[in-house]
């Protein structure tokens, strides 16, 4: 669970001040509970036509006015849930309810995100905010409308309609003419922009002209599946090491290309500085390959298909 932690110029409510129901967001479809969504998990049943409601209870455990040292506190706070999607490209307020600044209270949140306005991810920010300007005597008390008093942000991956890591079945002879890969089983392409989310930066193609490979790939746990994901990770790592930039930039978002590749590299070469990794394939190529292979075997399937390991 991630929480915004800006250094604010006024007193705020501690994280534990509000207790969110621990099971996460209850997903309701056609009046029936179909599962729970928690921070960092996926919502595989989602698609752009799904009508669903999210429900959750938040308990405010203590007295807000007392905690923040605000007086004249009537009707000054509200509980709000906003939803952003598409990597933050759009944001809507889905739930607003006044909360009392005095005493304990319970907020039963029920919100209905419009599936047609969602893609890729759903980031829910629940918070308590000041609704109006107030004039408390305490100089450290919040004063202006919109002041962030308590916030909690959770991200859920929307996986319906597309695999998290794009994988396309295409005829290599037509899709990559002149690249001499027509007989390859799979191919990986990477955009060299380290800040892009991994599902945008990385594309896996499997060759529809290799039907035996595809057929085996479709069997979960098959050797073909393991070879594919091992190959994807090897190629991404090697590309990153050879291009240098992906390993030397600040990793940024946890799901970015740079963050994912740096995480993999740190697992395999925990003591080697990133700027020295480029030497490995040049000096001891076989050892470099063996080190990657060893890590992949230690991971069991060798697959971190979405890069969230």
């Amino acid at each position, binding site marked *: 669970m991630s929480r915004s932690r800006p250094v604010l110029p006024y007193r705020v409510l501690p994280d534990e001040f509000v207790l969110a129901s621990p099971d996460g967001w209850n997903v309701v479809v056609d009046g029936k509970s179909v599962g729970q969504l928690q921070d960092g998990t996926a919502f595989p049943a989602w698609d752009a036509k799904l009508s669903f409601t999210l429900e959750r209870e938040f308990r405010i455990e203590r007295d807000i006015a007392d905690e923040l040292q605000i007086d004249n506190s009537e009707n000054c706070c509200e509980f*709000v849930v906003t939803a952003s999607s598409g990597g933050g490209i759009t944001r*809507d307020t889905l739930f607003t309810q006044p909360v009392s600044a005095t005493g304990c209270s319970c907020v039963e949140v029920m919100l209905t995100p419009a599936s*047609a306005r969602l893609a890729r991810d759903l980031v829910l920010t629940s918070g308590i905010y000041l609704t109006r300007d107030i004039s408390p005597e305490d100089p450290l008390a919040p004063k202006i*409308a919109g002041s962030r008093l308590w916030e909690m942000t959770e991200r859920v991956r929307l996986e319906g*309609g597309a*695999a998290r890591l794009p994988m396309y079945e295409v005829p290599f002879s037509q899709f990559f003419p002149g690249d001499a890969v027509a007989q390859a089983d799979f191919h990986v*392409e*990477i955009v060299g922009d380290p800040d892009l989310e991994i599902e*945008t930066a990385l594309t896996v193609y499997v060759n529809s002209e290799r039907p035996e490979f595809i057929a085996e790939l479709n069997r979960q746990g098959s050797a073909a599946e393991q070879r594919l994901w091992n190959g994807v990770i090897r190629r991404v790592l090697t590309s990153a090491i050879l291009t240098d930039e992906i390993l030397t930039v600040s990793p940024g978002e946890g799901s970015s290309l740079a963050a994912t590749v740096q995480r993999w590299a740190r697992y395999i070469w925990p003591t080697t500085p990133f700027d020295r990794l480029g030497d490995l394939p040049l000096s001891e190529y076989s050892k470099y390959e063996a080190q990657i292979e060893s890590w992949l075997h230690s991971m069991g399937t060798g697959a971190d298909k979405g890069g969230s390991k």
Partner: protein
Amino acid sequence: MKLWPRLPLPRAKALVGDYGNRSLEDLQGTFATNASLKLFAPTGGVPIDDKTLRKLRLELESFAQECGYPETGSKKDRTHFDELVLHFLADLPIDFGEAIRPETWAWIAVVLAPHLVKWRWMGSDGHVSPERYAGPIVRNSFGRLWYQAMALDRGVDSANRWLYAEEFGADQTVALLERPSLAANRAVCLAVGKAWLALPPAHRKEELFRQTMKALIVRAGFQRFDVLESRALDQAVSDSFSVTMRRLRIS
């Protein structure tokens, strides 16, 4: 739901590598020769038909021709092209989930209408930044216009629906829309437009806009704009412009 073709960004960037050396006429033929470069989401709808895609291309070409295509034209011509495309894309029947994917706009820019991208963006050396074909939405030639339309739309019932889109220069648009913590909420974008146009024209300097957007980002760190009612939001944005004007000694 109609699924639009997608072109993964790595493939798109590989393809545009030689676009700099190709003529507009040559690029115009890309749609016919790259028919196989159409990838769709594996589930969730029905792939859009070729007839609709061809119609889209014709519409975009007609806007370009209205603005002087294939002649190089002036900056004003290219700005006018952007306006026409923005108005058109605002009402394009494309599902949100398709439109927010950079891969969708990459397909449009790299396969459907690369000649228009090159015409719109090429410098004197014929070079076009690959981002205009295959960058994030806010950089893609067409994706950025769709996003602008979404963020700056004052509503179909408004007397001047595209007032802010027209009054913002390219620099202002970038300064606002490339900051998702502001731009993701249309109400914030509209408040910025309102405050900007309330300033005397002589004060509307690019530096003022840029610095105010930075100030708003800082302010948003402790004041959640999303929860403000309309009047309070307008006031917060207007105050930020005023403070920045004083700081920049604009009077």
